[in-house]
């Protein structure tokens, strides 16, 4: 678990403090004693496989679900009803009202808030101009997600919740969406993101919490976590280029037709390979990523 003893001065910078959150459904602990803090202007990632409790946690923070116990503070104060004026939410799965166009959907949601962004700004920010007059039912996955993001941003919120925003998008659309989120971050807004894509978290998040089966199993910045758990990098070479004796002597592993060498000292290992006259064609060096970390922490990979 992260935190908890910070000085009072630092605490003032937290826009959200979550403490000892528990949510049980009919005897199942969906969220089990979860605590963390989120600093202003950060992109905070809740990571984990499906069913880890990410969505339940984020929906308690949004005020959609009541926790069984524990509390969420916004800038040090208990959540009140008018929090909905200050936050923006993109749910994991949201149907938009049928038969309305994108423009009409923007108009509908604009009416709900006291303060809203000008539509031109939203349309430019989320790149909606090509399909403004299209019926919601006819939008592609990427267009839909952009409209949902625009709805989350419509009240110019300081805090934005994005629940698995890129699930189901093609790689191109995901990259475009990441750029949108980076643009939002650049405006010093606080973004809370859940995802089961570790590359997404590495790209976007300043800080991550990794959840599995309702509990937080690790937290920190992506780089901190990787440095803490992995001192080694991986070097890969085609199997036939490396003499069998050398493999056995160094206890290297053969996997998928490649020799996998895990090492703390890349230069030393390369020198050894050169000294042994191993050809370096096809050599790959790979740093561990959050996927490897998750596998290491839980013993199972991300269940899709």
């Amino acid at each position, binding site marked *: 678990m992260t935190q908890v003893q910070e000085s009072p001065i630092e605490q003032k910078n937290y826009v959200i403090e979550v403490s000892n959150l528990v949510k049980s459904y009919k005897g199942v602990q969906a969220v089990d004693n979860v605590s963390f803090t989120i600093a202003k202007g950060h992109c905070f990632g809740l990571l984990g496989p499906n069913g880890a409790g990410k969505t339940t946690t984020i929906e308690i923070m949004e005020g959609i679900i009541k926790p069984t116990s524990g509390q969420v503070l916004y800038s040090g104060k208990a959540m009140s009803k*008018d929090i*909905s004026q200050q936050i923006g*939410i993109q749910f994991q799965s*949201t149907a938009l009202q049928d*038969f309305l166009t994108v423009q009409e959907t923007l*108009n*509908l949601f604009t009416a*709900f808030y*006291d303060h809203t962004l000008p539509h031109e700004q939203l349309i430019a920010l989320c790149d909606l101009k090509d399909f403004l007059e299209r019926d919601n039912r006819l939008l592609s996955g990427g267009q839909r997600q952009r409209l949902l993001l625009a709805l989350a941003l419509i009240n110019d919120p300081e805090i934005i919740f994005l629940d698995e925003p890129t699930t189901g998008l093609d790689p191109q659309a995901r990259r475009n969406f990441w750029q949108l989120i980076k643009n939002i971050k650049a405006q010093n807004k606080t973004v809370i993101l859940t995802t089961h894509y570790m590359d997404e978290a590495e790209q976007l998040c300043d800080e991550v919490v990794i959840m599995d089966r309702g509990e937080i199993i690790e937290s920190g910045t992506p780089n901190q976590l990787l440095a803490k758990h992995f001192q080694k990098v991986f070097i890969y070479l085609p199997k036939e280029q490396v003499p069998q004796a050398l493999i056995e002597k160094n206890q290297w592993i053969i996997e998928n037709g490649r020799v996998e060498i895990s090492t703390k000292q890349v230069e030393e290992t390369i020198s050894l390979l050169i000294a042994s006259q191993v050809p370096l064609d096809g050599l790959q060096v790979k740093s561990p990523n959050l996927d490897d970390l998750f596998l290491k922490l839980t013993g199972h990979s991300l269940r899709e």
Partner: protein
Amino acid sequence: MNFKRFFAVFRARNIEFFRDRSSLGWNLLFPILMLVGLSFVFSGDGKAVYKVGVVNIASVQSTFIETRYVEFIDYEDKSSATLKLEQHAIDFLVDFSDKSYWVNQGSPNSYLIEKIFIGQHTDFKRLETNGKKIRYVDWVLPGILGMNMMFSCLFGVGYVIVRYRKNSVLKRLKATPLSAFEFVSAQLVSRIFIVMFMSSVVYIGCNFFFDFYMLGSYFDLFMIAVLGAISLISLGLLVASRSKSEELIGGLLNLTSWPMMLLSGVWFSLEGAPNAVKVLADFLPLTHLVSGARKVITEGATLADISYHVMALLIMSAFSLALGSYLFSWNTDR
């Protein structure tokens, strides 16, 4: 209550309804098809027995009142009896005390009874009324429109709310400052607008072809229809207040609508039904909508005359609305 938010939801719901062409077409076509079909099926006059009104029948000494296949009905008050004659509730009216009788110019039955009557009594004064004939289609019209309103109110509100809840439209709205009251009242008002608009279009359109019988005021008819719509929509909200399954809500709405289809006097009068059925029917909003509208149309009743139905609808609406908003759930808390 924030009217900007209320109006935005109201408008969005109306747009959704009028753009959904298949549903819109069905809402218009269904009652028209029913009316056309029924007017063909019941175009002949099914009544085998003639009904003759007699003023103060106890004092009458005439073999005429022993005529077979004629039902004689006693009236004390001549003016209410002539109204019945105009409305074709009876075919002929005779007052033996001042030796006069009335025929309805527009009724073939009246003509036949007159022939029988003047075979026995030649010294009676002949008087005429000019009641327009009430056909079955005139009688069944409030039933068909009421039934169509019922389906539109129950399914249009109940089904749509459950669909919104199931696919998280409600959840998305809950994440905004929109309140449950603003949302529910916008749905209610939108549906009243839609139902009254559609019913008016059907009534006015069909009136060109059928030239419906109408004794009362159109305002009173409109008001009883609005009250009926409110109570049916409230019932739909109540039924849909918690469910998130479209299959379940379909069943619940059918369970709510079919007793009304059968027992609310849409197709036939409940005059001769067992008392238990009548008591049960009294608890169904459609009964009061159809009876009230029918009295306005065929008897020229005013809202004061049908105050019983008006009160029943108001009480049912208040009950369903109160319970429905108490039970209302935005999302599907797993």
